[in-house]
């Protein structure tokens, strides 16, 4: 008999049961994919580094006598458990051309090495380790493939001095050390034979060679001190620093975590409503069963079996949907990394079972209340229950609203709990979209450009020029390079002041501890050209400014003195100010322009900056930047905002994530609207029929129902807008802080945040609610006779 009741119930309440089924599918899909993704992202970089075998400390040396120098230091260092060195050669953009003669777009210094000698694991698109490469072929960094639209089989020509190589692209690889957005160096993995051809060249072997070292240690501080003795260090840092380089990739991963949590919240909030709602609809049947003598235990059993059955079927469907859905979410962040966890599918299964468990538990709790009711109470609850509990909040006699508007407002205010579910679901999704839009717009603006050096009108990224200038006569070569640009632009009627910042690593001592600090100095700039958030700009050669991270690492504060050894000469430098930078993950010391440094030792150089003497308007600057692209025959000339976006590197991905979020928001809005409206119609069948009987037109009923959704959507969007700025500060600023920023003043695009995106969300909701509300047309006025 129990199963007969159950069968009839499933058939008779088909609509509500289908709605519940769909919500559970949705919840399972969100929960299973989100839990898996959260675990994957949290494991994120460490999982990747372990798979790649990156070790605990990394360094790169370059220049004369670089090869062999590291061995001497590391062999005698007790803190080093094990170390692996690979020999590499360095190239720059000018060395590489495509088949059509165009230059290959390479952002920073490029590394060429033998795959056979590689000490790091490199992964292909399927996350398989790349083990061998045939002569004449090369694996190259994935990002380089993307930047140049390269396909397997394309040929890249390398030429340096007398050495020429034609390299067929064998595939793209994920590079744990250099593949992050912040590093962005290209790596070419060659055959032993091709690499031997390179190193046979004396100039390459002498001036453009170096080593990359991967050290296993438990004592990074001692290793750091030891590494500071290795000559020609271009880059060094522990695992945390390399992890930090993935911070922008992790921003997106962070967004994914927040999104996942939001989806879980949305799923459970909606689920709770649906179960409470469907159970309240069952009261009458329960009362009748009690009245005819069926025991509480059995009644409860019927509903638990029902919810268990619905939840199980939905969970199985949801589980299968969660795998492609989760992969779609992960796709945006797994381009540059090998992400995963060892229990992927298991986590999806556990999450799906968890959803079933929660639903059954919740149903168990809800049906538990039935013990307290007498059969009559239950029957009465069925007849009057939810329907007759509410209190009118507005007064139609005093209201100027149209009847349908009044009814909509009154419903929302009288049943806030019911509509809060929708508001919460819409608000969470909208808020996420707005936060990402705010962040992306800020990244795309020129507001952050000061954190990458001096604020200029235009920037020109040319690593070849930078490298050759650095390896030439130092500062003189760099100034000659700046003069060349200035003359070239003057010939085209653009009078500019050119400048550039260089970065050099120097050994330093503070409070008895040795450090290797990255220092920056501008060529043709003054320390007063930069921004300082505390203290002053260095006024003489004995003063320096530092970043918060340098202060955290060394312990030095304003007023302290740090000993820095520059070109073999150790001097004391007084810290006089703090500044913000996102260069070198915020680890930077600014030297006064009078400090005499040998720029031949420079590890890297920023973009060349240009200030137009006639101080033109932004629109003119844009035109000139386009002209400069023609003059320099490159696309690598930027306005301040473009340069900022280029430096941050993930703006495109962030934009894609923003669209993905908008897409998910739309899906949530559509599903929640359809399912909620459908359950409202089911609940209000009697009211709709009576309204039609007394003369309300179909259009009025549809308008009434739609207006309720419009009210809650607008409330959700307004809340999301109001919270978007504080929430962006709360959630995104810490990420900028990790990159070296102290405070971020976000750029709010009112058209996007206040009109476009809310408009899209509202429009989608309107269409969904309209199409669903049209179902009320099926309820006839004569149904008043047949409604229970």
């Amino acid at each position, binding site marked *: 008999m129990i199963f007969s009741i159950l069968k009839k119930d499933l058939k008779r309440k088909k609509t509500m049961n289908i709605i519940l089924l769909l919500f559970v599918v949705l919840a399972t899909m969100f929960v299973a994919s989100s839990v898996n993704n959260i675990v994957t992202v949290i494991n994120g970089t460490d999982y990747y580094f372990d798979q790649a075998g990156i070790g605990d400390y990394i360094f790169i040396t370059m220049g004369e006598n670089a090869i062999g120098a590291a061995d001497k230091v590391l062999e005698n260092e007790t803190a080093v458990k094990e170390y692996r060195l690979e020999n590499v050669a360095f190239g720059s953009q000018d060395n590489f051309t495509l088949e059509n003669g165009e230059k290959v777009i390479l952002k920073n210094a490029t590394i060429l090495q033998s795959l056979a000698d590689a000490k790091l694991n490199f992964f292909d698109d399927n996350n398989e380790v790349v083990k061998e490469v045939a002569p004449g072929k090369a694996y190259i960094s994935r990002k380089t493939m993307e930047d140049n639209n390269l396909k397997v089989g394309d040929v890249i020509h390398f030429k340096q001095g007398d050495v020429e190589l034609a390299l067929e692209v064998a595939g793209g690889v994920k590079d744990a050390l250099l593949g992050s957005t912040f590093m962005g160096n290209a790596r070419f993995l060659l055959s032993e034979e091709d690499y031997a051809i390179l190193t046979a060249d004396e100039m390459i072997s002498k001036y453009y060679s170096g080593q990359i070292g991967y050290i296993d240690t438990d004592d990074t501080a001692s290793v750091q001190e030891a590494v500071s003795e290795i000559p020609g260090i271009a880059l060094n840092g522990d695992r945390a620093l390399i992890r930090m380089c993935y911070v922008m990739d992790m921003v997106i991963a962070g967004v994914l975590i927040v999104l996942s949590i939001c989806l879980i919240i949305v799923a459970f909030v909606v689920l709770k409503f649906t179960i409470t709602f469907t159970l309240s609809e069952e009261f009458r049947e329960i009362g009748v069963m009690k009245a005819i003598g069926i025991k509480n235990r059995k009644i409860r059993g019927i509903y638990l079996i029902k919810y268990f059955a619905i939840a199980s079927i939905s969970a199985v469907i949801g589980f299968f949907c969660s795998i492609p859905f989760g992969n779609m979410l992960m796709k945006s962040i797994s381009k540059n990394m090998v992400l995963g966890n060892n229990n992927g599918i298991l986590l999806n299964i556990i999450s799906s079972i968890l959803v079933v468990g929660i639903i059954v538990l919740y149903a168990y709790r809800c049906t538990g209340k039935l013990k307290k009711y007498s059969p009559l109470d239950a029957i009465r609850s069925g007849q009057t229950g939810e329907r007759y509990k509410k209190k*009118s909040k507005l007064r139609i006699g*005093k209201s100027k609203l149209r009847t349908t508007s009044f009814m909509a407002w009154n419903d929302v205010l009288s049943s806030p709990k019911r509509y809060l579910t929708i508001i919460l679901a819409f608000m969470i999704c909208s808020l996420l979209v707005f936060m990402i839009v705010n962040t992306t717009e800020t990244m795309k603006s020129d507001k952050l450009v000061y954190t990458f050096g001096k604020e200029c009108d235009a920037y020109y990224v040319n690593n070849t020029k930078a490298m050759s200038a650095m390896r030439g006569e130092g500062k003189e070569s760099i100034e000659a390079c700046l003069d060349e640009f200035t003359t070239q632009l003057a010939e085209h009627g653009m009078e500019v002041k050119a400048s550039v910042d260089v970065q050099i690593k120097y050994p330093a001592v503070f409070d008895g501890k040795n450090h290797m600090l990255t220092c920056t100095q501008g060529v043709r700039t003054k320390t007063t050209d930069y921004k300082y958030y505390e203290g002053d700009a260095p006024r003489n050669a004995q003063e320096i400014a530092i970043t918060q991270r340098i202060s955290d690492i060394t312990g030095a504060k304003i007023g302290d003195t740090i000993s820095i050894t520059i070109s073999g000469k150790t001097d004391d430098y007084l810290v006089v100010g703090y500044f913000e930078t996102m260069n070198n993950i915020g680890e930077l010391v600014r030297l006064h322009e009078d400090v005499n440094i040998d720029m031949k030792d420079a590890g890297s150089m920023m973009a060349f900056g240009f200030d137009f003497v006639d101080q033109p308007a932004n629109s003119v600057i844009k035109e000139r930047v386009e002209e400069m692209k023609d003059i320099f025959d490159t696309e690598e000339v930027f306005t301040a905002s473009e340069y900022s976006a280029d430096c941050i590197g993930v703006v495109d991905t962030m934009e894609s994530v923003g669209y993905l979020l908008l897409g998910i928001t739309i899906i949530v809005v559509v599903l929640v609207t359809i399912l909620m409206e459908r359950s409202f119609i089911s609940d209000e069948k009697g009211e709709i029929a009576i309204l039609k009987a*007394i003369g309300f037109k179909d259009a*009025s009923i549809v308008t009434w129902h739609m207006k309720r959704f419009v009210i809650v959507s607008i409330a959700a969007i307004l809340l999301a807008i109001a919270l978007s700025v504080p929430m962006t500060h709360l959630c995104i600023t810490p990420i900028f802080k990790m990159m070296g920023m102290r405070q971020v003043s976000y750029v709010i695009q009112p058209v996007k945040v206040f009109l476009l995106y809310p408009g899209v969300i509202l429009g989608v909701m309107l269409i969904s609610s309209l199409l669903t509300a049209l179902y009320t047309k099926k309820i006839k006025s004569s149904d*008043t006779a047949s409604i229970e």
Partner: protein
Amino acid sequence: MGNIIEVKDLCKSYVVDKRQNNILKNVNFSVEEGEMVAIMGPSGSGKSTLLYSVSGMDHATSGEVKFLGKDITKMAAGELSSLRLDEMGFIFQQMYMLKNMTICENIILPACQSDKNTEKREDILKRGQELMRKLGIIDIADNDINEVSGGQLQRACICRSLINNPQIIFADEPTGALNRSSSEEVMKELQRINQEGTTIMMVTHDAKVAARCQRVLYIVDGNIKGDINLSKMTDESQMRDRERTVNNWLMELGW
């Protein structure tokens, strides 16, 4: 007085499981303005279907239903809605009201919705309160619908049916869910309303309720088998005789 309703060859059928069920079979009758007509008949005879077809709540399969000379079977859904809103009032056995509104608000809702009604909201409210006062339920004006008895709720439904000053009230078992005393109160109110000039057409199972009407139609298997004119009831003392007359008449018809 002229006819407010004229029904000619009215047929209504449903198809269930590919079989056509003829509920109303060529029904013909008319209702004069100011009449109070009861429709009686056994369960499944087509009483409610007749009421819904005549009031435009349900579409007739064929035939004519003229309301004040206009054939409502030819009207579009929107026109019918306007007609029901402005010219007709409805009372049902289930006392459905909107859960999120007070009793008084439910009563005045049709007036607020009517485009024909140009009164201010305050005036509508006053009129609603006046109606409630007349029906003796003014004390529950601001109550929620779960705070009142069935009899009070049904009287509130009567107020709602009257708010737009309809030409006719259709009532489907208006006392079906009420106890005897509530039932009598409701019927007395309907009689009073009828005496003020509003036509009433109601479906009932109760001979006692029918006895209060001026005329009773008896329907069996979709056909009107009997039509009795009892004349207007003017005094409560006539009640016993009228009830006896109706019962005898029904027995003759096989009730």
